[in-house]
């Protein structure tokens, strides 16, 4: 049992490589293999990243000049609404779910998710939601124009008077994506709770698994509240009830509470797995164990629950009573503490390590820098006196793009590069990867940094025309935006080219420690020939101890001298 090289065990039943006859076709089937589903999610969501990016190009094109001269104002409204909706509901959430689908069973030593069929159904609901959302371009009156918040009473305006309108389709699409997310969350929580390999105790789980668990628990308690709000909005819009309609005695602010009760924690649904990705990538490329593993794990869970009581910081300017403002200001600052602890842990992990600046490492480091910046503007926004001034200005837009593009999207790229060899069995092209990184890093800052001075100067968000005094920063931002658009080209080239004819990837190209690196690349169906028995904590870099029983993993760990 003891002295067989891992490669020999792992390579026994390798999955045929994609490109082999009728192989790529499995991605178009109702497959229940979590790895196929993971890639289905990733490719689908990336397609919508491009769609959402296209909308962004139109927005930035309009904002090159102070006048509203590129598109009609109603189209402009539709563009920012669809941009936000697509990027969140069709890019961020599904891409993260896809990655988690691929990695979680491998990382905890399971053969698949707990409910494979439910998993496949949840995935196929995403294209359904996407088609409904896109169909709203053909609905009478065009797509929804009420922003990704869909605040009433704006979202209750229905100028065409038709039952089937853009806002209706928007609500339907968001509801379907919500149901899909809840199914996914039930699946992840059950998988992580019940399907871990022997010896994989809670405090031996990789941090990525911890963060997925934390994020999915948020989905479970948060999404139903949004669903409730969305159902009531739908009733108002379609049947003429008065829940949120101030003209009929309803209360529009209650909708805001429902919306943010979910949508604030939702930003943590996005960022927590990104924190997990950081925690996986930094130790590998710094060749050091993750600093403060247990504290990082517990911080994730703390965030899960504290992030449920901060939502009103989005509503400081919604006629919120002073006691509420103070309370939620305090909790918002408090939730930044476990976040800060994590940042500290990553810096300590990197400190004095032998850093290898591969593409995933560059993206992770870049994303960390962007996150620190966004955290600072976040704390500024959490402070009521500041927020009252910059609420609804470009300062807020700058803040959340540093997190959603700078941190979350760049973190996703880091993850895609890092696990690309595992998923495809091929190496990506390092040169193109580095080019992608530098274009993205420069583009992100050029696009989103100018939004901060703009917001401080008082430029409101969601406008197609603006005062000429704002022109300078807007032109800079647009140049950055177009640069970001171009930055995706080397990425697409790299992914497609490398998948088809990249160099064959070994099982463990990064000499990383983790169960997913002990199986072949790509892993066989059902992942493990024999379920491994875990005997150590993760991140044993430089510790010379095996991770699983009967393994000589220590060989992987020691630096070749």
């Amino acid at each position, binding site marked *: 049992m003891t002295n067989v090289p891992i490669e020999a065990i792992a390579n026994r039943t390798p999955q045929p490589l994609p490109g082999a006859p009728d192989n790529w076709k499995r991605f178009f089937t109702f497959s229940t293999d979590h790895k196929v589903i993971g890639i289905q999610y990733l490719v689908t969501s990336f397609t919508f990243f491009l769609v959402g990016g296209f909308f962004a190009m139109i927005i930035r094109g309009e904002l090159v000049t102070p006048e509203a001269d590129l598109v009609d104002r109603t189209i402009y409204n539709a563009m920012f609404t669809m941009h936000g909706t697509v990027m969140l509901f069709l890019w961020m959430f599904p891409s993260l779910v896809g990655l988690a689908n691929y990695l979680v069973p491998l990382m905890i030593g399971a053969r698949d998710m*707990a*409910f494979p069929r439910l998993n496949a159904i949840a995935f196929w609901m995403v294209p359904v939601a996407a088609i409904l959302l896109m169909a709203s371009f053909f609905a009478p009156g065009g797509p929804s124009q009420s922003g990704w918040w869909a605040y009433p009473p704006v979202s209750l305006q229905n100028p065409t008077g038709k039952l089937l309108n853009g806002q209706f389709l928007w609500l339907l699409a968001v509801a379907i994506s919500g149901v899909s997310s809840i199914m996914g969350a039930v699946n992840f929580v059950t998988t992580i709770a019940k*399907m871990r390999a022997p010896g994989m105790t809670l405090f031996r789980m990789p941090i990525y698994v911890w963060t997925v668990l934390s994020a999915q628990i948020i989905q479970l308690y948060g999404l139903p509240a949004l669903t*409730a709000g969305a159902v009531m909005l739908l009733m108002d819009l379609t049947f003429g009830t008065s*829940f949120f309609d101030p003209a009929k005695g309803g209360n529009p602010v209650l909708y805001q509470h429902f919306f943010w009760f979910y949508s604030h924690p939702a930003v943590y649904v996005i960022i927590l797995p990104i924190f997990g990705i950081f925690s996986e990538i930094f130790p590998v490329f710094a060749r050091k164990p993750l600093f403060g593993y247990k504290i990082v794990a517990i911080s994730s869970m703390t965030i899960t629950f504290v992030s449920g009581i901060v939502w009103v910081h989005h509503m400081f300017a919604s006629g919120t009573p002073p006691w509420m403002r103070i309370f939620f200001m305090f909790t918002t600052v408090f939730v930044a503490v476990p976040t800060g602890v994590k940042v500290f842990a990553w810096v300590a992990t990197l400190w004095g390590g032998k850093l290898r600046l591969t593409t995933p490492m560059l993206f992770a480091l870049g994303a960390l820098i962007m996150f620190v910046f966004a955290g600072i503007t976040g704390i500024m926004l959490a402070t009521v006196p500041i927020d009252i001034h910059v609420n609804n200005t470009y300062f807020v837009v700058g803040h959340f793009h540093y997190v959603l593009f700078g941190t979350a999207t760049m973190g996703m790229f880091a993850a895609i590069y890092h696990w690309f060899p595992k998923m495809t069995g091929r190496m990506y092209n390092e040169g193109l990867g580095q080019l992608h990184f530098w274009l993205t890093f420069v583009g992100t800052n050029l696009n989103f940094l100018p939004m901060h001075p703009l917001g401080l100067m008082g430029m409101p968000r969601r406008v197609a025309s603006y005062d000429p005094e704002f022109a300078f920063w807007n032109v800079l931002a647009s140049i950055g935006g177009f640069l970001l658009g171009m930055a995706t080209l080397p990425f697409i080239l790299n992914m497609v080219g490398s998948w088809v004819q990249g160099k064959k990837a070994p099982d463990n190209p990064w000499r990383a420690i983790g169960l997913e690196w002990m199986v072949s690349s790509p892993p066989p169906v059902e992942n493990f020939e024999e379920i491994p028995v875990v005997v150590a904590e993760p991140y044993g870099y430089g510790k010379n101890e095996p991770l699983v029983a009967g393994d000589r993993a220590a060989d992987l760990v020691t630096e070749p001298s």
Partner: protein
Amino acid sequence: MESSLDQAPAIAHAHAHAAEHTHDEAGNALFGFIVFLLSESVIFLSFFVSYFLYKITTSDWYPDGVTGLATREPLINTIVLVSSSFVIFIAERFLHKRNLWGFRVFWLLTMAMGAYFLLGQAKEWSELPFGFTSGLFGGTFYLLTGFHGLHVLTGILLQGLMLIRSFIPGNYDKGTVGVEETSLFWHFVDVIWIVLFILLYVWQ
């Protein structure tokens, strides 16, 4: 390790593997179902909170000509629904003792009680002098009772499915998780109704 390349141990391994699967699946299904119900309860909680907030902040709560809700028939309805939770519990006991007919009789009784509740609800709806768009009271009333009613209906349909399945030979060889889930769902629907009844009918 070499030996596992041979045929025999590989087959033995496959068997162990299959056993490991069925055992886990039932446990996972029940666990996942509980997680789902917890999540589902937040939707009801959100509607309850809406009702509560609307009621304490609205000055003309009832639509014109309405002074409140009649409680007699809803109370009978409530008693029937709540007792059905005990009946379904008895049905489950019978199943555990492998008394299939006992199970079926009490299971069917539960379904009948659920149907009685739904019919009573429908009758009440048809006699009420206000509708879904009659202000915040009408909106929340029909939203809450309607959403709950949908759950009762789902429960009855699930029970019907379980009843039909009980006639399949060997249906319970792999355990009774489907029945357990259905009955859990039924208790859930019951508890929600109790809160609802207090909010809508008791607190007038």
